[in-house]
């Protein structure tokens, strides 16, 4: 019998070689894993990294935004968490009071949501609605809160039960005194059945409310959004935009003279458009942003710019953007006929190199001389704001 004797150096070399082999195998595995695409990369939390972007720091006033069910305050370029999500409930859709001292925020649970009055530092002061039920279909949604110009009337969306059909769950616009009882709720709008209903109310300084009404558009065989104005509870209201344009998410400037919105023409990408508003009709609309998946246009307190959210990069995370708004044109010498419809399809759906802003004159309507707009400015890059949540902005 021949016995092979291993010297210590040989044994060490064998161990070393084996280790290198194992490391090579594991290394290749890990290297391959590391080179996957970043489509599912996690976003940072607001405030997790110091954002030194000057445009963000120069934003005047205070903004309230939502990411992953948590409410954040943005002031002088710094994000501060105000309300955190729990395992079952998330915060969304902040609305700031006219005096800027309090917020009304939605807390959305598994099968219902309620409105809460919250201080600007994030302390819950009162629960304003009570929509939970142990019976699944008897829960309610309360959404899109807004406080009226006097700060004492609360506007929101609510889904009353249809006594004739359990399947017809639609939201309508309601109002009630801030802190009032359920019996004080007033229904303002009558939604179309089985469409989702009327949402996103924005109360006007002169009274009345602008909101998005969803309806089946027969020519397109699909449900589309349309901005409507209702001046008193229960009145039928009037459309402000044509149904084909599929407009929603109205935002009224502080002076009440302009309305911003998103319009899709039934497509995936959205335009952010702005039109003059005389209290009853919407004037020609101007496209400020196109070719983006843009949402939640929100006026700056001075009415000179809008912030909005838009998906960015392969992750599709929604970042905060800023777009300057051209000044209001001088009043025409001859009052133009208010035209809520546009006679021809403008090139709004045409692909536009994102994120180039355009100031597109709409054909057939009295428009100001087209003004080259500065391109929109991306304010954040590694966050992922909730694009279904409104943004609140106060001086």
């Amino acid at each position, binding site marked *: 019998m021949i016995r092979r004797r291993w010297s210590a150096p040989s044994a060490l070399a064998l161990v070393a070689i084996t280790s290198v082999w194992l490391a090579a*195998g594991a290394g*290749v595995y890990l290297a391959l894993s590391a080179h996957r695409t970043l489509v599912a990369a996690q976003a940072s939390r607001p405030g997790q990294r110091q954002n030194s972007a000057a445009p963000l720091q120069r934003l005047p006033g205070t903004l309230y935004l939502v990411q992953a069910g948590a409410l954040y305050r943005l002031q002088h370029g710094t994000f501060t968490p105000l309300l955190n999500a729990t395992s079952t409930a998330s915060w969304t859709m902040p609305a700031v009071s006219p005096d800027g001292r309090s917020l009304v925020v939605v807390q959305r649970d598994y099968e219902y949501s309620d409105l809460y009055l919250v201080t600007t530092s994030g302390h819950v002061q009162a629960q304003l609605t009570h929509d939970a039920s142990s019976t699944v279909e008897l829960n309610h949604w309360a959404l899109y809160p807004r406080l009226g110009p006097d700060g004492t009337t609360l506007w929101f969306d609510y889904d009353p039960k249809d006594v004739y059909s359990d399947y017809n769950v639609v939201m309508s616009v309601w109002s009630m005194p801030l802190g009032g009882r359920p019996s004080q709720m007033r229904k303002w709008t009558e939604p179309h059945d089985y469409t989702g209903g009327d949402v996103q109310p924005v109360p006007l300084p002169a009274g009345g409310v602008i909101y998005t009404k969803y309806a089946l558009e027969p020519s397109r065989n*699909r449900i589309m959004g349309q901005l409507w104005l209702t001046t008193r509870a229960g009145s039928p209201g009037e459309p402000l935009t044509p149904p084909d344009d599929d407009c929603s998410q109205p935002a009224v400037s502080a002076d009440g003279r302009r309305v911003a919105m*998103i319009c899709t023409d039934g497509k995936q990408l959205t335009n952010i458009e702005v039109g003059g508003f005389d209290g009853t009709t919407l004037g020609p609309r101007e496209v400020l942003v196109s070719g983006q998946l843009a949402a939640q246009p929100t006026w700056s307190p001075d009415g000179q710019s809008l912030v909005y959210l838009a998906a960015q990069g392969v992750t*599709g995370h929604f970042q905060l953007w800023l777009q300057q708004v051209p000044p209001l044109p001088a009043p025409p010498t001859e009052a133009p006929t208010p035209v809520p419809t546009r006679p021809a399809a403008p090139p709004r759906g045409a692909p536009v190199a994102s994120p180039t802003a355009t100031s597109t004159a709409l054909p057939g309507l009295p428009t100001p001389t087209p003004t080259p707009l500065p391109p929109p400015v991306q304010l954040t890059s590694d966050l992922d704001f909730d694009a279904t949540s409104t943004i609140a902005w106060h001086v």
Partner: protein
Amino acid sequence: MRWRGALALLLAGLFVSGLSGAFAYFLPVALVAYAQTGQTTRGATAASPRPSTGTGADALVPPVASSAFTVLLMGSDDDSKFPSDAVLTQSMILVRVIPATRHVTMLSIPRDLYVPLASGGEAKIDAAYSYGQAADAVATVEQNFGVRVDDWVWVGLRGLVKLIDYLGGVDVTTSNPVLDDFYPADLENSDPYAYKRVLVLPGPQHLDGLHAMEYVRSRHGDVQEDFGRSQRQQQVLRALEAKAKAVNALDIPGVVASFSGEFKTNMNLSNISRISSLLSLASQLNDPSQIEQIVLVPPYTSTGVIDGADVVLANWDAIRPLIRQYFT
């Protein structure tokens, strides 16, 4: 000489180790390719003889040009209401791909469409899969619509949820608020008949797998019922296609693992040219006009009641020209 030998051994070992690491990385793909792809359709191809139905079977379109092909996408709620091999197809979408012109047509088949089944008798088309799985579903579509289905893909609901989550969600402009007080809570509940309230808010947003599923699956609160749902399904499919553009080969093991048992297809490695042309085409679809989306709303269909059940009835005189236009 000894050192040279040792060096050669080291390098060979490094090569083999690296190969092993790569093999381990792609092992899930190999396992799934073995288990869930390349499934046969038991002879249920367009060339197979089948009984005449008078609804288009006799007018089967001849095999298409070599470059163009048709895929039948099927999606099922694979909860415990039915045996796992006898589920209904909640979604059936015929996809016509013409790589030469970079054009894709998606045609949603209403799940309640009342048709003769390939397995015999008449029923809603969503039952075809439950009687004879993909073979009967494909044959039923072929004989009624007069198209040749070259390939088919079946995905379970959980698989779609996991896939969307793996891809980090999809970006969709949801058309309207989707509210449903009786949405099936079967994915998170052992009771297959449990239900829950669902709310998908309108507008642009980032949907994770569960919420994307709620958006494409809910139909109780839609004025267009299943037609509205079909539009939403096509919408999310396009969002997935957009997301898939960013995926590279190193993502495939993760994608495959996310499906685990929720994915079946007749495509296999012999279809590699078709699969690669699909992936290549997906990366080139930048213009929305390249994708035609068709939902068989009236006048292509009408509603009716048969044996007490609400059904959708086909207007074949209207549908056939559509099929000839887009699927030949």
